[in-house]
């Protein structure tokens, strides 16, 4: 094993065969105030897939991402990123937290926020270099936010804020991305921009896990779906998993959502 573990070109696919999967979770249990939120999660996510995580409110979708990122203590089980612990593979993981989780009145501009994505590549004391700024500009361009790079972040719309967060994740130049509800509260233009971007990332062999709220669109957006409700109800290719029975099992007896599901399944036929 002389070759380096980190291969930016693993994108091209040849490394995928021998490499450990991007995400492997075994027997994961997490609880808040002694109440379990996730219970016995087992999951292996293959490389190069766009995975949607869906489930009702309180199903533990965000908790799953936070637990994987090491933001929450685990009651049991383990998480591996490309066969190693998260702490040992930090640079290969990109994170997009929920947009509401930060204070958008914070005194920084768009460029400052995107540069934070480069911090993982910088040593202690080091400032972002010209190259880091160049990467940040490219990432802003990809989400069509380059003209706003000097804009104060409090002067952005919700959709623009989300695109800045995506640009920051791109600037991390990671191999596996975790995104917490990137589609929530964004305009139609941003939604399609995000989708285009996710497809681009997948084409480069990146693996992306997205917490998603909207069932009807979930079917069109993702290659694979993880149906989650405290436990893994189902995980597999979207066309196999997006069935009335499995969704009913995930969402329980919630009528409004079930009729939505019925509608969505009908459209499929």
């Amino acid at each position: 094993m002389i070759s380096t573990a980190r291969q930016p070109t693993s994108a091209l696919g040849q490394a995928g065969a021998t490499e450990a999967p991007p995400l492997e979770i075994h027997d994961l249990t997490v609880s808040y105030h002694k109440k379990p939120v996730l219970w016995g999660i087992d999951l292996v996510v293959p490389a190069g897939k766009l995975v949607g995580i869906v489930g009702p409110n309180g199903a533990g979708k965000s908790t799953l991402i936070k637990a994987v990122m090491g933001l929450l203590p685990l009651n049991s089980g383990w998480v591996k990123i490309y066969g190693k612990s998260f702490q040992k593979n930090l640079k290969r993981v990109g994170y997009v937290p929920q947009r509401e989780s930060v204070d958008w009145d914070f005194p920084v501009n768009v460029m400052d926020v995107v540069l934070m994505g480069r911090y993982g590549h910088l040593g202690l004391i080091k400032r972002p270099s010209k190259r880091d700024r160049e990467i940040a500009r490219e990432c802003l361009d990809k989400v069509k936010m380059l003209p706003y790079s000097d804009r104060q972040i409090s002067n952005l719309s919700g959709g623009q804020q989300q695109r800045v967060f995506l640009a920051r994740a791109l600037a991390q130049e990671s191999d596996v991305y975790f995104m917490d509800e990137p589609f929530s509260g964004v305009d139609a233009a941003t939604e399609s921009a995000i989708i285009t971007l996710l497809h681009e990332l997948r084409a480069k062999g990146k693996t992306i896990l997205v917490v998603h709220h909207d069932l009807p669109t979930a079917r069109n957006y993702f290659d694979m779906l993880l149906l989650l409700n405290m436990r893994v109800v189902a995980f597999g290719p979207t066309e196999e998993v997006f069935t009335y029975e499995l969704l009913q099992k995930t969402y329980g007896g919630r009528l409004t959502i079930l009729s939505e599901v019925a509608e969505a399944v009908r459209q499929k036929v």
Partner: protein
Amino acid sequence: MSELIPPFHWHTFLFSPWNDPLIATSNFWIVLMGFMVATACGLVGNYLIVRRMALVGDAISHSVLPGIAIAFLVSQTRGSTAMFIGALIAGIVTTIIIEVIHKKTRVKQDAAIGIAFTSLFAIGVILISLFAAQIDLDQECVLYGEIGYIGPEALAGEHTRIFGIPLGPITVARMILVTIATCVLIALFYKELLVSSFDPGLASSLGINATMVHYGLMSWLSVVVVSSFESVGAILVIGMLILPGATAALLTARFPRILLLTVLNAALSSLGGVHLATWLNCSPAGAMVVMASLLFSAAWIFSPHDGLIRRWYYMRGAGTSEPSEATVELTSK
């Protein structure tokens, strides 16, 4: 009324603090100490403001009382070093208590701050009244040190020398070191402080321990607060933790510029404060804080960024839109 406020002449206001060589030397040390305190407090205060923890400094400056009392009981001296260590430990304990209450119960952070510092302050009051016989110490002398005494002290006492440079009385010398250390620490950990203040989730995912950064910041806040207020008084410390940063934030929305403006503000407040204090013959610490609040008011009214005048001008001129950067940019494109 006219007897209460001395007459104001520009000439005397500008030159009287520096006329007499003795008074000038004394004022020099007062301004220097004020500038050091305001810079250190202001810089650390910026991080408290963006983290919405502005009142933690207030809490720490009260809750060190039991630390000082215990330090006295243990060491049996009123030596500055023992007091400093006692106060520092109490300050750090306060931040830990606040954090534990906030994390482990449903109590919100602001309420947790209120609980922690009033409880500790009360314990301090009890300790002092219980051992009043042994402790030649009262809360007055702890909370209301006075920067004005630094002048005479510098004239009379021994100067602490580092590399042969006279740095004034021990309190001033210590403050100079603390202020320099504050600047160095901010320069070293700029990225870590910024990202963990803005987005702790991202910080952790980048391998930056946000909890460690929090406790590091709080411990340093304790160092700054304790080394400041023993000699300048709580009002100056609490005022300077918030005022320079809040003023700078009205003038610019970029964090590095906020830090620079904070230092400028610290210089103007301490120098202006001494002039104000000479004119009114009042406490320099109070005058410095008044000066800082005057600067805040000026920024509020005149800020080219989002000041009252600019707002008013836009309301009349453009009619409908908010006078924010966004509208300017959009209309210019």
